[in-house]
């Protein structure tokens, strides 16, 4: 992955610019709430030994999808969690306490699993969760569980906007960027593309609906001349998109937007190519198109539209071009044999967030730990994450990029476009 100097400087400028704007806006918002402590998340950080936690082990429950068509995602979460725990334990743990992970499948009745993790396995934190529905279910009982919940994939805005901000469930956090990435930021990309008529194909469930809705709303404001001429709603878990593709091709759309992800996205892309979608659509925006399972599965056959196949995720291994990120990617690659998937990094960050909070609070009391997490600035592979105190959503930016085949093990991205997170995230009061 050789970047030439110009690209590197562009990326660096974007990254630094984003960081500066982001923190500036953050500081401007609530100066008293943003703490000026930067916690460095690398393996070189040393821990003071005098302060100790009440227990010799810190147990963290990890939930993810372990069965069925999306089983890879639970594994991504596990990889990130394990790597973080191994690194932390190799350096003396958290204030001398060992990190232990307990894994469960969120598909085996997530509420039962969450309760068992807390009440029987005695975990101090719950981390992970792929499905938005499951995140809402566990979030609903978080006050009863009385342990901090850090979501690392589920993207529903309702988790943070409703449960944390409106209902005041202060134990919920999220380290991964939510549906704003799929809906709102995608519109910023779309506005610069010389196309006017958009079609959308999204899963017929909340994530698909909200992504398309946010995309439409935002793009209409940015480019009033745009038209949305067709939309299709395959059910969640569709194995054959042909009838939907055929219907879209019958419209006069020039470009396609999709929030479909994982194995369904792989199938969708292959079928789009087969049916001539890439002759019709001049541009394609695939919001989770750079998820590593998709990138590896499609490989050199990842289709490229005339004006680009624009993809993103919740973290892109190519960005930001910092040493922290590069070293993380290298370590991950040698540990697990593949480039890190986005939910591996978000879970990795979550474990380190726990470490940072415990080091500050020096207690396992959930409310104190949550207070410590609020407003924290964390230096992670994905960049600087700011845990926004209003809704406990981590604010960091992830770019979109254009798929480009350069002979590497996965397709790479050109023209990375990063927009400062504070510009495309929604803000309180979320009306």
């Amino acid at each position, binding site marked *: 992955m050789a970047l030439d100097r110009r690209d590197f400087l562009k990326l660096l400028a974007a990254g630094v610019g984003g960081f500066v704007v982001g923190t500036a806006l953050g500081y401007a918002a609530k100066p008293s709430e943003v703490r000026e402590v930067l916690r460095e998340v690398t393996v070189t950080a040393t821990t003071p030994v005098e302060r100790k936690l009440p227990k010799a082990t810190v147990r963290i429950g990890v939930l993810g999808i372990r*069965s069925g068509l999306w089983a*890879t995602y639970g594994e991504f979460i596990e990889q990130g969690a394990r790597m973080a725990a191994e690194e932390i334990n190799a350096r003396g743990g958290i204030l001398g306490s060992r990190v232990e992970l307990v894994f469960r499948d969120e598909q085996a009745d997530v509420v039962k699993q969450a309760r068992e993790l807390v009440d029987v396995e005695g975990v101090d934190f719950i981390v992970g969760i792929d499905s938005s529905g499951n995140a809402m279910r566990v979030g609903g009982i978080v006050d009863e569980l009385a342990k901090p919940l850090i979501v690392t994939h589920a993207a529903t805005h309702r988790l943070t906007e409703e449960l944390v901000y409106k209902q005041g469930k202060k134990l919920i956090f999220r380290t991964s960027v939510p549906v704003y990435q799929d809906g709102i930021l995608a519109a910023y990309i779309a506005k610069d593309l010389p196309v006017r008529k958009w079609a959308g194909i999204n899963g017929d469930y909340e994530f698909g609906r909200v992504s398309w809705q946010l995309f439409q709303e935002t793009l209409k404001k940015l480019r009033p001349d745009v038209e949305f001429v067709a939309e299709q709603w395959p059910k969640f878990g569709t194995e*054959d998109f*042909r*009838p939907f593709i*055929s219907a879209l091709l*019958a419209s006069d759309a020039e470009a396609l937007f999709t929030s479909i992800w994982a194995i369904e996205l792989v*199938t969708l892309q292959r079928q789009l190519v*087969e049916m001539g979608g890439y*002759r019709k659509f001049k541009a394609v925006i695939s919001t989770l198109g750079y998820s590593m399972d998709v990138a590896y599965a499609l490989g050199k056959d990842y289709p490229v539209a005339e004006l680009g196949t624009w993809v993103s995720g919740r973290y892109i291994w190519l960005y930001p071009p910092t040493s922290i990120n590069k070293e993380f990617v290298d370590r991950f690659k040698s540990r697990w044999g593949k480039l890190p998937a986005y939910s591996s990094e978000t879970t990795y960050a979550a474990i380190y967030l726990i470490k940072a909070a415990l080091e500050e609070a020096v207690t396992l009391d959930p409310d104190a730990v949550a207070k410590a997490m609020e407003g924290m600035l964390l230096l992670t592979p994905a960049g600087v994450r700011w845990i926004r105190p209003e809704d406990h959503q981590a604010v960091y930016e992830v770019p979109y990029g254009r798929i480009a085949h350069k002979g590497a093990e996965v397709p790479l991205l050109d023209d990375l476009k990063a927009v400062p997170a504070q510009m495309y995230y929604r803000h309180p009061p979320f009306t």
Partner: protein
Amino acid sequence: MIDLDTFLSQLVVGLFRGSLYWILAAGLTLIFGVTRILNFAHAAILVTGSYITYTIYVSTGSYVLAFLGAIIACGLLGAVTEVLLIRRVYGLDPLYQLLLTFGVTLVVNEAQKLVWGKGSVYVPTPEMLRGGVAVGAVTVSYYTVFVVIVGFLLLLALHYFINMTMMGLRLRAVWRDPVMSEVLGLNPKNYYTLVFFLGSAIAGLGGALLIPAITVGPGLGDHLIVLAFIVVVLAGLGNIVGSYITALAIGVTWSLLTLVTPELDIVILYLISALILMVRPQGLFGER
């Protein structure tokens, strides 16, 4: 309102999906017709066939070998299941039999994950079937047409086999009257195993045809089995020709519906099934 090109391409897509459902339902209906067992694991066997196709193709590079391998392997899988497990429950209530096959499904799905991993697998379209013909804005691939043709050939083959061969005659005898067949010297038990082999082999064929068209992941069968059951029941249980027509009809209707009412496709399908069954409870082609 809908131009001819779109209609035609959607029609072909519908026939393609219908043919896949037919192949899935054919084995199911064959097994049920003779043994009265509804094999819930049937779709899981089909998906296993896809996985086997993938493995053989990756190691030998030959589609033909992969196809044949999947067919035989699935046939054996079905036969082994019958001998080891299904045989023990012939006397039981059909629901217990269904429960057993449900347990088998869980095991097979998990086995797929353990053997082939959690990621997706795929086999590229065979060389000579690549590409397609442009119908308006849609390219109808040669492969989809190929699958439709194979589906039809399967119908002819099954029909010929069941109605015009000695083996088919024996199967029909066992189906109609197991007791009498035994008196006449046929051992129903052997025929049950045979029909499980045949039905599962057909599923294997379906799996081999599926994987160049659809990316396969563990547990994919669960998304297919319900529609297979609906086809079998709507057609009238045990009816081969009826199943073919019903499967194609469902495929085509569903495809055309996405053109007209994109929001409601699967709902309408269920509603139509419900309506048909309320009006004609024995299914479209069944006998009372």
